[in-house]
Structures are given as C-alpha cells and as structure tokens.
C-alpha cells in the first residue's frame, strides 16, 4: 500500500498535549469541587433529614470522584504513553480477558447494590409520615406566588375537593375548615416534624427549599405531601423549581421557622376562614 493511501501516517503522532489536557481536567475538576465546597456548596442545612442527604452526597462524591480520577489518570497516561512510535512499534493484541471484564462488572455491581440499598432506606425514611403530633400546614402556590393554610384551633385542615369550584378547592361546608387560617406568610415551628400538604391553584409548581433539602412537585389536582423537621429558626427561601409560566424565575417565597410560642401568638391574630367569609365578625 502506497504512502499516499495511508492517511494514518499523516495525522498527529504525539498525545502529549491531549494527555496533559485530560490530566488538567482531572486536577481542575478536583480543585474546583474543593474550592466550591467552601463558597458555593449546599446552603447551610436547616432540616433533620437533610443531614443524611448531605452525608450520602459526600459518600457518593468520594466514590465517583475516585472513579473520575482513576479514569482520567489512566486515560491521560495511555494517551501519552501509547502513541504510535513508528513502524517498529506494534500494538499488543489483546481482544478479551474474562477475569478482567468480570472484575469490572462485579465491583461496580456491588457498589451499586450497596448504594441503592442505602438510597432506598433513606428514601423510605424521608417518606415515612410523621406522627399525629406533627405540625400540619398546607403550602399553596399559584402563578406566581405563595401562601399557606393552617389548621387553626382544631388542628385539622378543612378538606379539599376538586369539585369545589373555588381556588384551592377548600370545601367550606366542612366544619373543620371554619377555623382554618389562610395567610400569605408561611411559618413552621422549629424542631417539630412538619407535614406539608402541597396544593396548586393552577399549573404544576414545585416546592423547593434548598436549605431544607426538600423538594416536591405541587401537582395540579392533588395534595402532594412532603415531610421535614426544621432544626434552626430563621427565614429560608422557597423557590418554584418547576417551570410554571412567565413569572417562574421570580417566584420566590419565604418560609419562616419560629418557635412554638411565637407561632401560637401569631396564628391567633390572623383571621380565620369564617372571619373572612363574614367580614363584620358576626358569625363565630
């Protein structure tokens, strides 16, 4: 075969620059993650289950990071080392090796098995409904704002029914709804498990509180539920995580974590649904 036919001999021979590039990705990647941990990482944690999520994240980060480093270290090395070295050099004929292949089938398999068991356990924990003493609140979203409904004195939220042609479908005939409090401020009590009912007035929104590591769609027509236990008082941002229309980007809400006493005083000052229905304060 003539030289002119053989384009292989015309291409670049040295893999040095590529290998260095691959190594630099490895180094820059690791450094940037380490640097970001101090500046741009998860928001400071404010919920109980979040600690476990963060821990699992770190475990997987170490595992995948090791994998990333391994692959890139080898890749860079191979690229630099095994470049074509002229006619005399020859590639090593190595079509398969069952032991090697099984090794890297079984090892990742075991790792994945472990990870999925751990992940599933955590997932089930997070989805275990809290006991009857939980703080109950219905967080509501609409294009493009947030509000909340609290159960009031009886501790029971009035039932919702999609057939009730009213925003958020609260059935006012249900006696439990009379003392419900609807307010644009969202408040929960610190160190008390919160059972959050999520309800949307229109399209799908997403209740996303980065500091709580909590996220759940607010599915049209359904009261989705999510559970968390806030561990620190303060005010935290809520973002609508799922695209819901033009104002999606600015759909920011705030959730205030307060003490039980603060909440009790606050909630007593708010109007109940029955108050709102009879503004002159006649019916009670």
């Amino acid at each position, binding site marked *: 075969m003539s030289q002119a036919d053989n384009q292989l001999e015309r291409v670049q021979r040295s893999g040095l620059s590529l290998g260095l590039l691959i190594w630099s990705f490895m180094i820059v990647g690791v450094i940037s993650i380490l640097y970001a941990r101090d500046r741009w990482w998860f928001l400071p944690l404010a919920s109980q289950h979040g600690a476990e999520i963060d821990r699992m994240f770190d475990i997987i980060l170490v595992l995948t990071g090791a994998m990333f480093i391994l692959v890139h270290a080898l890749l860079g090395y191979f690229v630099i080392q095994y470049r074509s070295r002229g006619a005399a050099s020859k590639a090593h004929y190595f079509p398969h090796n069952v032991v090697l292949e099984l090794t890297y089938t079984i090892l990742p398999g075991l790792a994945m098995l472990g990870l999925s068991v751990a992940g599933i356990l955590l997932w089930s924990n997070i989805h275990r409904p809290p006991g009857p003493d939980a703080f109950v609140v219905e967080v509501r979203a609409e294009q493009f704002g947030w509000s909340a409904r609290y159960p009031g004195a009886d501790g029971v939220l009035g*039932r*919702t*029914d*999609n*057939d*009730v042609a009213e925003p958020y*479908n609260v059935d006012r005939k249900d006696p439990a709804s009379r003392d419900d409090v609807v307010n644009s401020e969202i408040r929960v009590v610190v160190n008390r498990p919160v059972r959050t009912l999520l309800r949307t007035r229109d399209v799908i929104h997403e209740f996303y509180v980065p500091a709580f590591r909590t996220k759940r769609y607010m599915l049209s*027509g*359904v009261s989705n*539920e999510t559970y968390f236990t806030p561990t620190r008082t303060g005010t935290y941002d809520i973002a609508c995580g799922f695209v819901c229309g033009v104002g999606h980007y600015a759909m920011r809400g705030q959730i205030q974590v307060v003490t039980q006493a603060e909440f009790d005083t606050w909630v007593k000052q708010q109007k109940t649904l029955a108050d709102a229905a009879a503004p002159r304060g006649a019916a009670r």
Partner: protein
Amino acid sequence: MTTQTHGHGRPPGTDAGHAHGGGYAGYATTWFYLLAITLVEVAIVEAKAWFGLDLPAFMRIGSLIALTVLKAGLIMAYFMHLKFERRSLVLILLVPIVLLVLLYVMILPDAHTFRAVNPGMKEGAGPSHGTPTHAPAPAATPRSGH
C-alpha cells in the same frame, strides 16, 4: 418497488407453495373456539342476570383477562401463524409484550395515589352521592355536526 424489494428476501420453501398449519379445517376450529370463548366471556359478565350467579370481582376480572389472553394467543398462534414460525420470532415478540404489561403495572400505583390523596376523587364514595357537579344533565346538549 415491489419487484426490487422482493429480490432476495424470500423464505426458502415458499415457492413450492406448500402450506402448513392444518389447512382450512384448522382455521375453522380456531374460529369456533374464538366464538365460543367470546360467548363464555359474555356469560361471565352476565352471570348474575342469566344464572343468578354473583361472581366476586377478582374472579370475574381474572377469568376475563385469562380468556382474553387465551383468545389473543389463539389468534397469534393460528391466524397469524406464529405457531409455525421460528421459535426465535415468538420469543422476540414476547419481550415487548412483557414491557407493555410492565408499563401498565408501573403506572397503576399512581392512579391510586391520585385517588387516595385527592379527596375530590371520592375514594370509596359510591355513585349515590358522587360527583354532583356533573350529574346527568338529561338534555346535555350533544354537539351538532356529528
């Protein structure tokens, strides 16, 4: 088109014109069984009206599905000739059918989630006090033009 594409995609033996599969009698039998199974299905559904037999729901639905699968099997095996095709084809066709069943099975729990968490869907409410807002409107205006 036709002549080109059939250039070499033909199974051996077809040119001999020999036919397998039991011939016309075999089809008559299949046809008879299909009709008979259909009748049995209708009988199961109408068991109460015809025989005064009140079958529990799981038995009724289970037997109906079993009979449907049997019917489908008969059609595929005899009418669609799968019984006389290679085994590999049958196996290949079975895999996606399993996938379809899985699609259904994996979605079904969500229908119930929807029903359970959403009181509007009237869990456990019989037709008696259900859905008053779209109660039968006797003169529900049929759309014209159909």
